[in-house]
């Protein structure tokens, strides 16, 4: 491995040898964790750095540096956007009304277009993950399910393939599928209301910036100088601030949260993290704006603080309903929701446990249905066994047939179950 000095410091440069590949991979993993650190950072914003980078992006969009209005959270941005409304009105995407010249578009539209074009050009410089089988050897994307990244190198897989699973995928699942939608749902106006301004995600752009940054620092992708400078500006914003809303002449920027709780998903091997706190907000900003999440699922506050049957039945999102029922406990839910027990049967393969099939009256879920209550085959850490409910078709009257249906089997087939763990 040779070390080369770049404007960002000393980076290993990939020269194709195995020892070099191992060094590059561990460097890439360190960079990935660094970017995850930025995405989940709770430090106060680095305002001078953020303002300098945002002014640089405005310059790329052909606009003079804006005034900056800092707010403590994305929730606090909305009143400011309303107060500064003329600067944040969105153009209508109708041919007859759209401005003809680039310079006449609002700065937010120009920035969105710059970002999108930059990402397209950067993506062209990075080779996609290989998908081909070679004889009996699966492509890395499949092999990665069972092989540690380091072992993949020893098995002859290419570093550039391994970086997709070692860097790109964990950043994406942890950031793009994690705090971004959770914060948007909890703190920004609901869909259907007229949105003001265009949201940019600052620290929560770390997934695409990190991916391209790692490729460049390892010397696996080279970007044209202009694109490298553009990427550096987006990266500087992601390292220094929370979400932001560019307007003409004024830019609203949110601080980062003051509290973030995550856990590695069970079995995570590549640094993945998901939002979770069983009692408190998983994300909290200085002004009290809060986002609740359980095991990676974003939920309304009541699911964590006060789940009730009435609230569960008023909740349209099935994932949220499931989370809430599990917090309440399936037994309690079945009692309080007034489900009618149709039949019980010993659970084949799960000695001492019973399957309980309930009828769900039409008024409960809006359509008649059945719920099968089963007991886990293995014990929880507290020694108890978790009950769980499965929704099954309304025509099934036999608990064993209902359990069989869930695996595509008949009742008679499922009755032969020898063991459940």
């Amino acid at each position, binding site marked *: 491995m040779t070390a080369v000095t770049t404007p960002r410091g000393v980076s290993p440069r990939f020269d194709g040898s195995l020892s070099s590949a191992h060094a590059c991979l561990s460097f890439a993993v360190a960079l990935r964790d660094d970017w995850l650190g930025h995405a989940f950072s709770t430090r106060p914003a680095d305002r001078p750095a953020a303002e300098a980078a945002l002014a640089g992006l405005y310059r790329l969009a052909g606009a003079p540096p804006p005034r900056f209005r800092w707010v403590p959270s994305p929730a606090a941005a909305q009143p400011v956007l309303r107060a500064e409304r003329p600067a944040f009105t969105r153009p209508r995407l109708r041919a007859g009304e759209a401005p003809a010249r680039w310079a006449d578009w609002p700065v937010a539209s120009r920035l969105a277009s710059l970002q999108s074009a930059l990402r397209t050009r950067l993506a062209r410089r990075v080779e996609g993950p290989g998908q081909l089988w070679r004889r009996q050897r699966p492509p890395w994307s499949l092999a990665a399910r069972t092989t540690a990244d380091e072992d993949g190198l020893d098995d002859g897989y290419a570093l550039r393939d391994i970086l997709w699973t070692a860097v790109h995928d964990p950043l994406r699942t942890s950031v793009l599928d994690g705090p971004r939608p959770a914060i948007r749902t909890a703190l920004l106006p609901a869909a259907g209301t007229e949105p003001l301004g265009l949201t940019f995600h600052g620290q929560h752009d770390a997934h695409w910036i990190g991916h391209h940054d790692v490729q460049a620092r390892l010397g696996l992708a080279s970007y044209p100088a202009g694109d490298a400078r553009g990427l550096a500006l987006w990266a500087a914003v992601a390292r220094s601030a929370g979400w932001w809303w560019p307007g003409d002449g004024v830019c609203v920027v949110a601080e980062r949260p003051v509290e973030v709780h995550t856990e590695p998903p069970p079995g995570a091997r590549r640094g993945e993290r*998901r939002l979770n706190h069983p009692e408190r907000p998983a994300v909290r900003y200085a002004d009290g704006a809060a986002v609740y999440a359980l095991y990676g699922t974003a939920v309304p506050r009541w699911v964590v603080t006060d789940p009730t049957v009435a609230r569960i039945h008023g909740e349209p999102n099935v994932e949220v309903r499931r989370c809430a029922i599990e917090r309440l406990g399936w037994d309690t839910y079945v009692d309080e929701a007034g489900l009618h027990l149709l039949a019980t049967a010993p659970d084949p393969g799960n000695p001492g446990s019973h399957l309980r099939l309930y009828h769900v009256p039409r008024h409960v879920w809006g359509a008649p249905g059945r719920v099968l209550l089963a007991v886990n*085959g293995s014990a929880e850490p507290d020694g108890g066994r978790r009950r*769980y409910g499965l929704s099954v078709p309304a025509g099934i009257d036999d608990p064993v047939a209902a359990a069989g249906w869930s*695996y*595509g089997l008949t009742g008679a*087939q499922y009755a*032969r179950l020898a063991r459940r763990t």
Partner: protein
Amino acid sequence: MPTSASASASVTLADLTARTGLDVLAHLEREVTVPVVAGLQAQGDLIVVPLALLGDDVTVPPRAPWQTVPAGGVELLRGVAGGNPHTLVADPGTCRWTWRAGDRQGLALGVLDAREVAYLIHPEHGGTGIAPGRYAVRRQRERGEGTGRFGNRFIAD
């Protein structure tokens, strides 16, 4: 009960985790022998079904690519948010796996073909042994919001 007790069946959960590097939650009993089952068995949201039991519901095309299950195992399914994998493990060279199985119910992840005992490991459910033979591995579904066949959804615990 089609539970065999061959010599290779005296494997404990501790042996399996040591052999594969996969881990399970601390409360699971590690020193008890993992039973080996020749018939139908379920591990959480997965079920292992002898192919013979399914008739022609699950088939493997003649040119399907098979992979030898490596020492680290084949991860069959992950739970929500990337967690809790079910991993198929076996002594090197004794078990094959293919993802290319056709299933009329659309639930099969693939088919395994074990010459010796293979195992399924899961962080919460522990380990279970699979006697030599051919099996389909299916995932679990539940009735979804919509109606009809495509109104169903998969379980991911």
